[in-house]
């Protein structure tokens, strides 16, 4: 199939239009991407047969697609940063109600100071919500992950909402050659959306009731198990998709690149830079372990690929203030029961759009060789020589 050069946001709009989506809600939170604008244009030109709702707030954007999904329509919205933070209350409710929503998150920093550039703080802040989170390396992966997201979310053994996370600017605003899978093939892959518990006057049901403590705990336990168990479906969907569309992203949860004894653990677009450096032998004895699904966290899989390394260097584009980066904390926890655990260190990089370039990565790897396990460092850019 042919590849076209297009902007990341446009590619998202193009694939959403091919997913048989019936309701799209749009709100231009700052920072805005072109995703919903592109969809609005396609809708105005009659290229998508769906309802397009210009809501008055991000809070209503997620509420509207929640309502639409509950009424049996596949739906879509995109958000980022402050918009996702505003949605927070409904983000939790959507997972608790087991509604298979799909959102694209253009990852951006959270205020204050106000900042429109990339980091992962916005979606990391939603990690405990019960949503599946897929972090993408390239625009092509975002396109493929949107299709996979609907397939995973709507699986009757899953019924969980999914966030497809793409780095703001680095992916949303770049132009890349992308292949957009055609509508007929995507429709066939996804099938019709057939939510088993939809709102229907012919079969009345009550959704979103009050849960007293015992019922609440039982239902939350079910939710927790559903998120853990979704790993299997995520991998299966990835494999079937890979067969039909020809693109592989590790095992769907995790990707290992190279075989050095020092593992760089990262998520998102920075992985492209790391791969390039490994290819060019610019990082001595380094391999990349890319986490694709931060939720569910691929704990067993990550232990398997990290336990025999000499050192594990986590790159976090977020920080849990008062402790360390979120990815680091979970990787370190995962390795706790290993006998000869490797050294594990954390570098918080790229906050609020600070470039994570080859110089940064070189700095991080060299520094990692000299520090003790447990080292946590926030790299604000001033440490990095610009003369790399």
């Amino acid at each position, binding site marked *: 199939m042919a590849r076209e050069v297009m902007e990341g946001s446009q590619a998202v709009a193009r694939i959403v239009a091919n997913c048989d989506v*019936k*309701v799209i*809600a749009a709100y231009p939170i700052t920072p805005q991407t072109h995703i919903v604008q592109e969809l609005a244009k396609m809708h105005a030109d009659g290229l998508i047969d*769906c*309802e397009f*709702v*210009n*809501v*008055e*707030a991000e*809070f*209503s954007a997620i*509420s*509207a*697609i*929640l*309502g*639409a*999904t*509950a*009424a*049996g*329509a596949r*739906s879509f919205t995109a958000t980022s940063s402050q918009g996702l933070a505003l949605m927070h*209350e*409904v983000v939790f*409710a959507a997972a608790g*109600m087991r509604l298979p929503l799909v959102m694209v998150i253009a990852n951006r920093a959270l205020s204050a100071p106000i900042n429109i550039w990339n980091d992962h703080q916005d979606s990391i802040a939603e990690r405990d919500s019960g949503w599946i989170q897929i972090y993408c390396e390239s625009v092509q992966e975002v396109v493929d992950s949107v299709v996979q997201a609907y397939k995973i979310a709507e699986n009757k053994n899953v019924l969980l909402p999914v966030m497809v996370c793409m780095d703001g600017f680095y992916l949303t605003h770049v132009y890349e050659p992308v292949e957009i899978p055609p509508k007929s093939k995507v429709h066939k892959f996804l099938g019709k959306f057939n939510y088993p518990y939809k*709102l*229907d*006057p012919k*079969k*009345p*049901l*009550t*959704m*979103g*009731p*009050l*849960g*007293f403590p015992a*019922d609440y705990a039982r*239902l939350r336990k079910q939710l927790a198990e559903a998120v853990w168990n979704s790993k299997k479906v995520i991998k299966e969907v990835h494999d079937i998709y890979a067969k039909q569309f020809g693109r592989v992203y590790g095992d769907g949860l995790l990707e290992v690149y190279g075989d050095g004894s020092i593992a760089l653990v990262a998520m998102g677009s920075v992985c492209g830079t790391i791969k390039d450096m490994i290819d060019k032998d610019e990082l001595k004895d380094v391999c990349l372990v890319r986490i694709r699904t931060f939720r569910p966290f691929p704990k067993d899989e990550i232990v398997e690929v990290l336990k025999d390394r000499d050192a594990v260097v986590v790159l976090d584009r977020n920080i849990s203030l008062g402790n360390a980066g979120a990815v680091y904390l979970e990787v370190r926890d995962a390795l706790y029961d290993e006998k000869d655990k490797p050294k594990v260190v954390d570098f918080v990089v790229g906050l609020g759009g600070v470039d994570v370039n080859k110089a940064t990565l070189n700095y991080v790897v060299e520094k990692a060789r000299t520090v003790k396990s447990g080292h946590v460092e926030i790299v604000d850019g001033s440490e990095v020589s610009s003369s790399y």
Partner: protein
Amino acid sequence: MGIGLRQFAPGHRTCAGCGSAIVFRHVLEALGDDVIICQATGCMEVTTTPYPETSFKVPWIHVVFENAASVATGVKRALKAQGNNHTRVVAMGGDGGMIDIGFGAVSGALERGEDIIIIVYDTEAYSNTGLQRSGGTPFGASTTTSPAGKKIPGKQEWKKNIAMIAVMHRAKYVATANPAFWADLQAKVRKAYEMEGGTRLIHIYSPCPIGWHVDPSKTIKVAKLAVETGLWMLYEVEEGKLKINYKPKEFKPVEEYFKLQGRFKHLLGRKDIIEMVERHVREHWEMMEKVEKEGIDLPKLV
């Protein structure tokens, strides 16, 4: 079968004399079976759906406090996209959920002219959480966050008028209603049901005996007095034109209404405040009757 019981089963946990439960029975009976209810958090969600039980025999969804109108928007659009143009979608919430915290969602739906019915049952305070002051709380009322103290005699601001705010959004149909005038209430809900396209909003007076410190056997008596004193005007605005549905021959004294309710007891004998409230009522009626008589097209003001 009793009023509304086909749609709203008994056995729920509302308080004795709950005005909202009476309002729900009338509203749901008038709506019938081909509806989907989108409910805001509040008493009427907490008392009716203790998992795994439910009072609702029609499809019903509750998400959070402030998004009933937005959830209804999504439900309606989803039905439309699936070719269902008959099922009516109704957003229901109290004054807290619709006038205060969910006001943005209500305003957004009105501005877009969403094809939904919005029911605001107004208990004039946050009844579910222990009767705190809301934008719907009337002047002078004592609530737990606007208590009548030695210095400040209850709420010192006037009630937010959601019905007229809806009119100024060019809503297709706006009405006020009151459970003491239940035939009028049901007729208005039915009218909203029959209409298609555009947002219909009905603002319903809904006594809360526990919160208002009213004898639970006097719910309807208080509701009736609200109309007879002129404090709660029954009207409708269709395509911008106002019609007042009931005009008391002469207004009963506001004090008669106040003396049945603990929330106003600190105002009994406060001639200055009572006169101010009565003047406010009189001026409101004069203005509204003028609008009706002259056939002023209200949305043209904006």
